[in-house]
């Protein structure tokens, strides 16, 4: 069983949004980034995987098991961190932890203690008095203290300061020291993934645009900057998400040949960041603005 998570033809229709027929898989032992602008369907996908939303069609299997037929067994082995904690504000961290612990078969108190120490979690404080960063850290500590094999995170770092974010990313590296575990990390802040992500899945308007290793993605794309005159040639067909300025244009290319041809014609090519790739792809449709 190579893949830790497999999604096949997953479909869900709402009044104003459709997640259409998406498929992807997550190999074990890696961090997979799930990117896309807000409203692309990241949270919907995660909620469908967790069976918080009911799918219209499609299959989801986790650890090779159907996510509904084996729901409890699977959830015992999933650690989740969402963008909001949804923990009982009235309870103290310690009380909430006890409640969470009681739900899992294999709670590892020692591990929780050590993470709580590492994050300086105030165990006796009420959850309502915790900062946002602290709530996320608590979620993460709880997610990592029941020997979970798959960590599912939905925008865990949004609204956090860079120091906390880097602490959290560090912990993710710890998780995949075990090559049987996997991390699924959804975010619209792609800079979190520039360094640590192994695979990138991009979703846009309810469809998967690509699912590749991050290295491939960065290598095959280039940010091109060139004179406006190039836009009148056939080279323009190779450009994605053209942004015209007064002095020139900026765009993205896919494929080395496309970039080489443009460089030969006088444009400059740069290595893109994930953010560039996301921005140019989502700009595609209003391209010539």
């Amino acid at each position, binding site marked *: 069983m190579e893949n830790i998570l497999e999604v096949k033809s997953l479909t869900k229709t709402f009044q104003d949004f459709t997640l259409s027929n998406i498929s992807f898989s997550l190999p074990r032992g890696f961090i997979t980034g799930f990117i896309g602008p807000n409203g692309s369907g990241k949270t919907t996908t995660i909620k469908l995987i967790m069976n918080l939303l009911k799918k219209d069609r499609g299959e989801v299997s986790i650890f090779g098991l159907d996510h509904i037929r084996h729901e409890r067994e699977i959830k015992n082995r999933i650690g989740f961190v969402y963008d909001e904690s949804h923990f009982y504000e009235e309870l103290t961290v310690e009380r909430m932890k006890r409640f969470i612990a009681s739900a899992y078969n294999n709670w590892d108190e020692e591990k929780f203690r050590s993470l709580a120490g590492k994050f300086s979690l105030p165990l006796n404080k009420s959850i309502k008095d915790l900062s946002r960063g602290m709530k996320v850290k608590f979620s993460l500590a709880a997610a990592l203290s029941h020997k979970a094999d798959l960590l599912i995170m939905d925008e865990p770092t949004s609204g956090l300061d860079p120091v906390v974010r880097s602490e959290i990313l560090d912990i993710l*590296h710890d998780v*995949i020291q075990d090559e049987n575990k996997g991390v699924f990390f959804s975010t619209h802040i792609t800079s979190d993934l520039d360094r640590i992500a*192994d695979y990138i899945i991009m979703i846009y308007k309810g469809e998967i645009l690509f699912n590749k290793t*991050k*290295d491939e993605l960065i290598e095959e794309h280039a940010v091109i900057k060139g004179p406006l005159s190039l836009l009148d040639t056939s080279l323009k067909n190779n450009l994605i998400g053209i942004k015209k300025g007064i002095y020139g244009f900026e765009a993205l290319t896919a494929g080395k040949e496309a970039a080489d041809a443009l460089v030969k014609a006088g444009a400059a090519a740069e290595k893109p960041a994930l953010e560039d790739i996301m921005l140019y792809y989502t700009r595609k449709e209003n391209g010539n603005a």
Partner: protein
Amino acid sequence: MLLNIIISNTGDKPIYQQIADQIKDHIMKGLLEESEPLPSIRSLAKDLNISVITTKRAYDELEKEGFIATIAGKGSYVAAQNKELLRESRIKIVEEKLSEAVIAAKSAELTFKELEEMLKFFCEEEK
């Protein structure tokens, strides 16, 4: 084991290449000796704060070029170096640097004689 790896995000060189080159450099300089174990892919990825796949690619590259060997379940270590090959690659580096020096000398309008003097001076200093 002393392993210094510095990664630059700004350069055009891909990260896996930077890692491979620096480990190669350690091996050629003899800082990493034969059969010395290398850090595991996962722990190196963590310490360098980069992805596992990138690190794996660097190791694959080194393995392909015969610098390291990997035993499944045990990890990677510095392979027995082909002395002839190693020497060749070192000579290649010398040639490269020398040709750079020659180009620089030409633009500074140095004569061959002056260049030879300089080389002699450096060689003696190194002793």
